[in-house]
């Protein structure tokens, strides 16, 4: 169901960031363009991680959760922000990754964490390949529907397959071996934090390189103008399927990290509200900007941690209000605000 192009609008779907020809400039030049916001956010997040590691032992577990959400957000941003495929069912890959390591541990004694992480990525990638072929055949609302339908289907399966998943009670009794045979998961969450942080850093490097590669640029091209991409000889369908699979694998790894660090898997990892939340995180940070998605994940998770302690109803209200404000007044998200702040500094400096 292709949506007709709105009148007087160029074919364009999301706020744009294109790591283009101008990226090869000096540090000073970098700080002035969009790369400047990326750099500022990267430095701030790095400092925050370091400070938490050194002084914030009470927040290690929360920080691990933040890092996991960041990986999940990156996976969705690559799909939604870069390739322009809107999904409301990405929790299915996150949840599958979580259940994959959980079931591998409980049923088959596969407790080694790093190989289990790869297993989760592979399982989610497989489901991504199978559903992606079908989801990408439709567009617009039909596509949104199919992502939701597949997610609901897998949720039902997990709910019913009690012997395997524990159903609504969740999967209990999961054992995770020490990371690299050395670092046991401790109750303070130090291992959990460092472990998820390490995986996050690898994923961020991978994602940054990919978005600057010809492949990453071709995804932006497809988002911007599918017809033209076809006319320059791109197999659009195959390229979209490939990013769908990559995104599914990354989401699966994020889910697996959650299962390993909390040693429990509940049905909520497959729930629709998680699919919605992660989309909100990407929009909050700024879709199509990797560092935006990362920033969004941090802000959202901390916000949620504070507010949901009060009353879930209030949390829903503030979340809705925040989201409405972002959509109506700051469609480029938090990173768009950082862009504007930097531009303000620059013009003051010039004056």
């Amino acid at each position: 169901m292709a949506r007709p192009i709105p009148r007087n609008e160029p074919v364009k779907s999301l706020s744009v960031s294109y790591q283009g020809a101008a990226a090869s400039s000096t540090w000073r030049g970098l700080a002035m363009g969009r790369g400047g916001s990326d750099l500022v956010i990267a430095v701030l997040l790095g400092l925050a991680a370091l400070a938490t590691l050194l002084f914030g032992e009470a927040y290690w577990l929360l920080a691990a959760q933040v890092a996991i959400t960041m990986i999940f957000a990156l996976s969705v941003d690559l799909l939604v922000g870069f390739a322009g495929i809107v999904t409301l069912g990405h929790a299915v890959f996150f949840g599958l990754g979580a259940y994959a390591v959980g079931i591998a541990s409980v049923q088959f004694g596969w407790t080694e964490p790093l190989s289990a992480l790869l297993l989760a990525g592979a399982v989610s990638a497989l489901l991504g390949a199978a559903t992606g072929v079908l989801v990408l055949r439709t567009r617009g609302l039909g596509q949104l529907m199919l992502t939701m339908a597949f997610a609901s289907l897998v949720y039902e399966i997990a709910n019913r397959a009690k012997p395997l998943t524990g159903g609504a009670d969740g999967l209990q009794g999961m054992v995770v071996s020490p990371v690299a045979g050395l670092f046991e998961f401790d109750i303070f969450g130090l291992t959990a934090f460092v472990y998820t942080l390490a995986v996050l850093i690898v994923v961020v490097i991978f994602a940054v390189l990919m978005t600057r590669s010809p492949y990453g640029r071709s995804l932006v091209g497809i988002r911007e103008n599918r017809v033209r991409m076809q006319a320059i000889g791109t197999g659009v369908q195959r390229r979209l399927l490939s990013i769908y699979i990559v995104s599914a694998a990354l989401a699966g790894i994020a889910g697996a990290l959650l299962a390993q660090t909390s040693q429990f898997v509940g049905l909520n990892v497959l729930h629709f509200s998680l699919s919605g939340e992660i989309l909100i995180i990407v929009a909050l940070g700024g879709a199509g900007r990797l560092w935006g998605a990362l920033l969004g994940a941090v802000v959202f998770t901390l916000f949620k941690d504070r507010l949901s302690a009060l009353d879930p109803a209030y949390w829903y209200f503030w979340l809705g209000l925040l989201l409405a404000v972002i959509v109506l007044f700051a469609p480029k998200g938090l990173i768009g605000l950082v862009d504007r702040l930097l531009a303000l500094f620059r013009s003051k400096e010039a004056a």
Partner: protein
Amino acid sequence: MSAPILETRALQKNFGALTVAQNIDFSLEPGTFEALIGPNGAGKSTFVNLLTGLVQPTSGSVILDGEDVTALSIEARVKRGLVRTFQINTLFNSLTVAENVILALDEFHGQGWRPLPSPSRRRLIRDEAYEILGRLGLDPWGNREVRELPYGRQRLVEIAIALALRPKVLLLDEPAAGIPSTETGTVIEVLENLASNLAVLIIEHDMDLVFRFAQRITVLVQGAVLARGTPDEIANNETVKSVYLGEGIHA
């Protein structure tokens, strides 16, 4: 006469009871510049879409460089050298002019799947992009977003993208459409400087342009070929004249 680079055999397309392409036999030799003309609704766009693979024919075949490509996808035909421009600009509006060409060059060089950046290769491709832009006089605009360009320049970006794909056959869908007549000079200059071994099929309403460049002209009416020949033959063809009565067909 050398072997045709592009050929159609008994190409037919029906939409229900409506025939939009009727038994079209067509051929284009390397190095020739041919024009496709016809009144509005004659089926010119459908014919181009049949050639590029956007529309599948009801029957008949499309042969590119001796190979039957009828069943091949759009992108497979592009990879084999069949490249088109669009009548209405179909560009990456929020990317820069150079980036528009770089996207095409990446695909042409088979880099589209390369998941890692390579600064050295990137510089090469950038230079190549600017070389192409230079040929069209677009190099000063390389770093500007396409949407900032005046419409006439955007039309040239269409051609720049097509040239980046090193076509064997170039289908130009009204390259001068929407450009004020005072600015068609640039387009003419570009067309004059196209490589001599390239086969070009141009769809154009501007008869001055057609008769200036075309070595052969095909007239399409109601989905069928009405006449085919040199500009002189077409200009003196009585049937063509009657169809174009009032539109002033003359060189």
